[in-house]
């Protein structure tokens, strides 16, 4: 669960770096974006001369990572389902519950 947005905090980078190594060891990964975390998958992010957090998240999706973003958090931040990258979806607590039920390790990154 990632609760902070892109660039402002290093959390999204840490999640990406951990996820990449876990993937290469054959683990399966789910990421639930909560609060500002939903902003990490906004399509329109442009980052001249900097790492692109949206592309990093898209790369994880392409590698089989399931990424869901809290629909309520998105609504409060003016993000619609058409605003987020392909392969990700807005989702409610039922999905977070499924993630928590199915996973062996749960990491939360906040403020």
């Amino acid at each position: 669960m990632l609760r902070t947005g892109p660039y402002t905090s290093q959390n999204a980078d840490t999640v990406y770096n951990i996820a990449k190594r876990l993937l290469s060891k054959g683990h399966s990964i789910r990421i639930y974006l909560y609060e500002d975390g939903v902003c990490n998958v906004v399509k329109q992010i442009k980052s001249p001369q900097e790492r692109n957090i949206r592309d990093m998240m898209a790369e994880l999706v392409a590698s089989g990572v399931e990424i869901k973003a809290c629909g309520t958090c998105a609504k409060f931040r003016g993000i619609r389902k058409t605003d987020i990258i392909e392969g990700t979806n807005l989702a409610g607590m039922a999905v977070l519950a499924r993630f928590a039920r199915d996973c062996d390790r749960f990491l939360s990154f906040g403020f």
Partner: protein
Amino acid sequence: MSPQKTILILLRSCPYGMATAAEGYRVIIGLAGMGLRIHAVLLEDGVLVALKGQNPSGLGMHELSQVFAKLTEFGADLYVHTPSVTERGLSEAGFIDSNLIDDEELKDLITSADHVITFN
């Protein structure tokens, strides 16, 4: 279907300054509503959430102690970490109903949980 899992939720933040307590609440009732066993612990500045008499109308926000007081109706257990209360010069007397725990009991809750989700 996998057996029921126990999730420990640690809520460590003062209410209102950050949305953390309110957003933590949504996760607590959301996961409890989906059949997960939830232990919610208010600790550090999070104990302020349990203090009665909050009035955030001047901030245009919703009061939180009363919604947390109803957590048991959603099947979640609420705990308050007493060392955090004492360190902040508060007294459990002014708090909503909850289970009071010390460091050792908190360690036991951690050990008995499948996952720990932190809101800080």
